């Protein structure tokens, strides 16, 4: 394996989405974005809704929106377990708007605090998605 590359893997519960040798990835960690270069110290972090940026050289090659999940970093590897992952280019702003609206209605209908919390979280995810697309 090339010593100056990171083995990046993006996995969703349903399948392996991406597996590639890259120069750097920037991951939206729960306590701030962090970049992963080769020989990064081992780290496990939770993710917040945001955009993963994959770098080839100095260019951003891919932008992928994730709704949350976990990242595991070792000196050679960066594995992201995503809850939901969509390439930024494929986000349909109109559809997301509609979802936000629907969820807003759900929120008004929700009875228990628990339900409300779940829906509020979903709305946050969609809003982050919209921001990512913009």
């Amino acid at each position, binding site marked *: 394996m090339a010593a100056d590359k990171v083995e990046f893997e993006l996995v969703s*519960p*349903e399948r392996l989405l991406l597996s590639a040798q890259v120069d750097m990835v920037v991951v939206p*960690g729960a*306590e701030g974005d962090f970049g992963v270069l080769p020989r990064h110290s*081992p780290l*496990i*972090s*939770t993710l917040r809704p945001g955009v993963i940026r994959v770098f080839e050289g100095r260019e951003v090659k891919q932008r992928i929106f994730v709704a949350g999940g*976990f990242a*595991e970093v070792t000196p050679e590897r960066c594995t992201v377990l995503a809850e939901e992952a969509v390439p930024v280019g494929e986000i349909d702003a109109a559809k997301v708007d509609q979802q936000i609206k629907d969820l807003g209605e759900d929120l008004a209908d929700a009875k228990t605090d628990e339900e409300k919390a779940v829906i509020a979280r979903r709305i946050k995810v969609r809003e982050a998605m919209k921001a990512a697309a913009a």
Partner: protein
Amino acid sequence: MASLKDLRVRIGTVRNTRKITSAMKMVAGAKLRRAQEAAEAARPYAERMGRMLGSLAQSLKGQAGASPLMVGNGKDKVHLLVVATSDRGLCGSFNTALVRRARQLARRLAGEGKTVKFLIVGRKGRDQLRRDYGDAILETITDVGRRQVRFAEADAVAEKIAKLFREGAFDVCTLLYNRFKSAISIIPTEQQLIPFAAPASGEAGASPAAEGPRVSYEYEPDEGEILAALLPRNLSIQIFRALLESNASEHGARMTAMDNATRNASDMIGKLTLVYNRTRQAQITKELIEIISGAEAI
């Protein structure tokens, strides 16, 4: 003896049945392939998850205040059995075998003086368990994986279990499902979900020892918080995996069952055709004898 016409009708019926069973076999075969692919595609996630949990559990070992999902709530009184069966029948002993296993387990637990409750996935399991354990069934979830098992469905099941656990409806949760080995071999399997039991080494590639020296991770935010997020997630994943396996097994079982049915129908057609031909010949002979003896009498 049945008349020629009756025989013809019967052969026709069996032939129709054979057409249906062989079509069902083909459909099950195609679905099996898809289900198998889905099960394989889901494997990497489960593996990585197992690896992360393994290293987390190691670094948290012996610390007080671990999540109840991990260590249980200290009681062992009420058991919840989650039984993953299918919605449709005509799949051989797929459901019966699993339900039998669930009954055995329930009897054993009851013998030890424990309370047993059920959460059932799939219509068939409910139908079979309702008679004996009607009151113990907390909930039935149907129409899971109609076309394909989606993660959201597994997540919903996991969420229900987690909620019941938070409300203190049970202490220990065990999942029963059919593990897919091959189209002709499915294995009823039990897996303890709560408290979390680390997968047996060798399975799901979660053998930390094989990965050389242990690396010590940094955690962000911190171990406890990650674990708190990871454990419910792991529950969903385990259920998702079980549902996928169960789905693949169902189609495999149906394929074998329909293959047998098709073969039986063919055998039956053969036997009936033999009887039909014999009867026909006997009738011809009888008519000939009648004509000849009639001619001789003159």
